[in-house]
């Protein structure tokens, strides 16, 4: 028994000696870091990377509280979060590891293909109620939103709704999968998801940010050449004094092999 205790203590000690690092935060970034961590551990068997989700806000809170080494986020760190880190005498480093395009999706049975940003704003703030107002059939518009805690919601609100609140009483779904399911089975539906989640059950709308002059299809190609407007950076945040510890993994994600993963899971590479 005693032997076992000593042994397990030894194992714990050895593990804390190797460069164990914890990554926590956005569900959107999760597929990238999970895959990257898997391959990274394979090529560096001594290292130990653990990845958990929870949402951008949770990740950053954990970074402030010191329970994670890297916070992954699908939105920029807020002013007061940065402030809290500075108060504790630390400086935070920000690294953009990938980009994600947000697609506005509708039911495949809907004939509308183009929408301007102003029209999307009108729909989500409740000013446009029928598809015929934007060139579709005479059918009620049913907008679906994400829960207010999601980073995707925050980015959509900031970029597309220009910081306005969606109409009160909008339907909000707990996950990207549920959004896809609802849009698939509701004829008048409209919603937004990360490009990586778009599949053949839903139709992605072409979006215009210049009041209808050019409509751009949401695709990885258009996100890379910067013609598609609703693109957000995905971030890693870590404390400067932990830089030595996390550097290897961050460099791995930014390396060609890491960016290959980014492309494979459906996001847009940094370079």
């Amino acid at each position, binding site marked *: 028994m005693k032997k076992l205790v000593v042994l397990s203590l030894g194992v714990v000690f050895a593990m804390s000696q190797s460069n164990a690092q914890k990554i926590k935060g956005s569900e959107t970034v999760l597929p990238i870091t999970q895959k990257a961590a898997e391959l990274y551990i394979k090529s560096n068997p001594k290292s130990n990377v653990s990845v958990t989700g929870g949402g951008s806000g*949770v990740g950053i809170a954990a970074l402030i509280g010191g329970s994670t080494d890297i916070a992954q986020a699908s939105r920029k760190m807020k002013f007061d979060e940065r402030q809290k880190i500075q108060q504790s005498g630390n400086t935070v480093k920000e690294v953009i590891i990938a980009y994600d395009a947000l697609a506005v999706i509708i039911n495949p049975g809907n004939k509308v293909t183009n929408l301007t940003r102003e029209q999307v704003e009108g729909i989500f703030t409740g000013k446009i109620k029928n598809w015929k107002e934007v060139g579709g059939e005479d059918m009620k518009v049913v907008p679906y939103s994400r829960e*207010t805690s999601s980073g995707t919601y925050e980015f959509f609100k900031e970029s597309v709704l220009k910081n*306005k609140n969606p109409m009160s*009483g909008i*339907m*909000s779904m707990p996950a990207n999968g549920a959004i896809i399911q*609802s849009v698939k089975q509701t*004829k008048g*539906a409209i919603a937004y998801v990360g490009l990586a989640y778009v599949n053949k059950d839903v139709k992605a709308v072409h979006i215009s940010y210049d009041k209808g002059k050019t409509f751009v299809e949401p695709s990885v190609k258009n996100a890379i050449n910067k013609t598609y407007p609703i693109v957000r950076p995905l971030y890693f945040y870590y404390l400067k004094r932990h830089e030595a510890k996390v550097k290897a993994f961050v460099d791995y994600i930014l390396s060609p092999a890491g960016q290959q993963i980014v492309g494979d899971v459906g996001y847009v590479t940094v370079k």
Partner: protein
Amino acid sequence: MFRKISNIIVKQLLTFSGAITGIAILFISIFLFKEGLGLFKSPAIEEGYALFVNSKNIVDNLTAKEIKEVFDSEITNWHELGGEDIEIRIFRIDEIFQHYSDEELGEDYQFLPEKLAEVIREDESIVAFVPVEFAPAQHVGVKELMVDNITFSDYFAGKEWLPTATPAPLFGTLPMFLGTLLVSLVAILFALPLGLGVAIYLSELAQERIRKFLKPIIELLAGIPSVVYGFFGLVVLAPLVQKTFNLPVGETALTGSLILAIMALPTIISVAEDAMRNTPRAMREASLALGATHWQTIYKVVIPYAKSGISAAVVLGIGRAIGETMAVLMVTGNAALIPTSLFDPIRTIPATIAAELGEAPTGGAHYQALFLLGCVLFLITMVISITAEMISKKKNYKDM
């Protein structure tokens, strides 16, 4: 001797575990209410922030709703708020970084208040939303807008739930309260006749063999995780409801009620059936001996005798429906609207807590608002279980 000691030890252990449970329950309720009631001490504007205007502006205070409408560009002119006829310009802290470089603001942002004051002084139409820490309060030409604390009626009678709206979140819980009651009551209306029917069949009509086979299966229904019910509801029931009633959306109060009814059925069936089977053999035989038919015995003797058990089944079923979280989160659409019909999407109290508590900053107004929702739910279920207790204690033979 040994036996005596072990008896004493067991007795002490039992008392101790009872005390622990009691203390735990007390502690949880105190914690719940302490966190929840803190909400009414928080200002209606986001914690740690303040609103500033030019000192020439004659508007002095705004309500949370007015602030929200200003920042949503629904109110665009100061005269709508009792001010002069100029268009409102909204200013958020992040904009300052577009006007000034990091060097100009200082390393620890020590010059930030000064620069903010400069911006506000220059523009009579401005309303600036800035952190209190950098508030340009002492500077000339700047005035802080007064904002009241969140009130009781804002919370319980408010119709809008926008907990992460900046600068002024809105915590109106009336839609959720009504949504929860509607969905649960309708669920009971579906589940009760069906559940009672099955209970009567199982206890009175079914052959022993069939009963032995059916009862465990029905009780197994109670063991299915609610997420599975939720997924079934989203994929199967929602499209069905949508097609049958030709609705624009399938996620409605009705869909939620149907799922909850299915989930409440096992509870209702097994409690009601137990109550009916407890009818003494002597009573049934007396009834039959007086010439009553089998059916007359059921509704004149068995059901009146089991009345208290049946009521308890109903109340337990309602309790199950009101507290259910995951399934309704998935099928009711979660729209915080006051329901006007069964075909509207609704949002329930447990679903709101489950969906939002994870990312509400600890100790903030949103967090407290969710805890208070927990208190409301706690009170509702407490009333229900006290009612259930009272009903099942009462043995009523008068009607027989």
